[in-house]
């Protein structure tokens, strides 16, 4: 390997991760603000009303990204948890734990905005539809993961035990994803798929992508910030922590 190449494994060392994350967080936070401003302007002002749903469809710009994020983040959390469990990489454990609250937040947002959207379009806040129910289960899985992590005092054991739970819970993600195809229920099918052109106006589609990107940037910034604190807690007796903290104050 040449010396100029990025040495990725360097950042599995907590001290290097701490420094890198510290430098990256402002960038991602800045991108989050910029993308949210653009996305919300496009979504609330530029994009035309829907021909069927009028203005109430605009909640899609937060509902769909939140629902996507809730599933992506769960898979990501399970992947990190699995890496931590198998290869004993500490930073993977830290990342898995740091992702959970953000994932739970997006799951809650997806359910909440879904309820607010359901009222004007379906006439009810909640139905026991396959997608809604499986998304609710996802929220419980996140909460169970966090509760199990919090219940075990030993850090290493907590990470491993909750990793098993995260991996077991992964079966729920394809159920959510395919629920609208497997069960013909009230929730509408996907408007956007990888294989076909989107069945919505371009401006709506672009706005949705920008909002999704904004949610990604937000997640990265927040997760990195949380992981940074977690690293400090884990390594509080290490010399580099004292050096960094004394340098900052």
């Amino acid at each position, binding site marked *: 390997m040449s010396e100029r190449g990025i040495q990725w494994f360097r950042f599995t060392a907590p001290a290097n991760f701490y420094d890198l994350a510290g430098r990256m967080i402002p960038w991602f936070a800045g991108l989050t603000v910029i993308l949210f401003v653009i996305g919300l302007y496009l979504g609330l002002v530029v994009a035309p009303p829907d021909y069927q749903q009028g203005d109430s469809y605009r909640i899609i710009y937060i509902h769909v990204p939140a629902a996507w994020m809730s599933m992506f983040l769960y898979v990501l959390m399970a992947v990190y948890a699995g890496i931590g469990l198998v290869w004993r990489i500490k930073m993977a454990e830290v990342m898995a734990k740091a992702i959970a609250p953000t994932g739970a937040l997006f799951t809650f947002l997806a359910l909440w905005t879904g309820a607010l959207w359901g009222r004007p379009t379906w006439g009810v806040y909640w139905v026991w539809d396959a997608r809604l129910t499986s998304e609710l289960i996802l929220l*419980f899985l996140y909460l169970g993961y966090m509760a*199990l992590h919090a*219940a075990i005092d030993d850090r290493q*054991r907590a990470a491993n035990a909750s990793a*098993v739970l995260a991996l077991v819970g992964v079966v729920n993600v394809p159920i959510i994803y395919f629920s609208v195809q497997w069960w013909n229920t009230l929730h509408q099918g996907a408007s956007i798929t990888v294989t076909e052109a989107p069945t919505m106006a371009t401006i709506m589609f672009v706005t949705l992508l920008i909002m999704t990107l904004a949610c990604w940037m937000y997640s990265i910034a927040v997760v990195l910030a949380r992981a940074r604190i977690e690293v400090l807690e884990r390594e509080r007796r290490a010399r580099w922590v004292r050096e960094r903290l004394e340098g900052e104050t």
Partner: protein
Amino acid sequence: MFRSVFALLRRDLTLALRRPQDALTVVGFFVVVVALFPLGVGPDPEFLRTLAPGVLWVAALLATMLSLERLFSDDYRDGTLEQLLLVPEPLGLLVLTKTAGHWLITGLPLVLISPLLAVQLNLGAEEILILMLALLLGTPILSLIGAIGAALTLGLRGGGVLIALLILPLYVPPLILGSGAVDAVMHGASAQAHLSLLGALLAFALFATPWATAAALRIMLD
């Protein structure tokens, strides 16, 4: 290999038979929960009949969950579990054996008592048959999934409450399929699709969950 599996199963069953109140408590809980529903929602026979599949299944879920805490905790306390980890047989197989014992002690009695409760809730003969079949396929799944939760909460403060949060979300598929089977028969449709899916779920759980449980046990006893 089969000798040690057999010995473990016999030990668990003997222990349970010497203290039958443990298993009977679970059945008692099942009966009482089901009996509370007519008192709560009113004794209208038609309404109870529509409610019956869901009520019986949810009660079975809760009863199974209550009994899960004991699946490993007694062995954990007297050190047997640590010995089991040292046995040359694969831990997954031993876990499967213990889970089978748990089902025989708590799951099977639920299946056997369910027709009585079904009659009380005004179900017909064919519906009762399907209910028993669904419970027969479904309760082992509950024990298998529950074993993961029991292993993960081993020796924790407030493990009993935590197990509910961890396990009940995972119980949703058997609940939907199991009560759906009875519901289908009630509306004149065939229950075959539901029962086939339950069977597939059981096969998958038999294959996958013992390894997850074994991994969890290793972590918690580390």
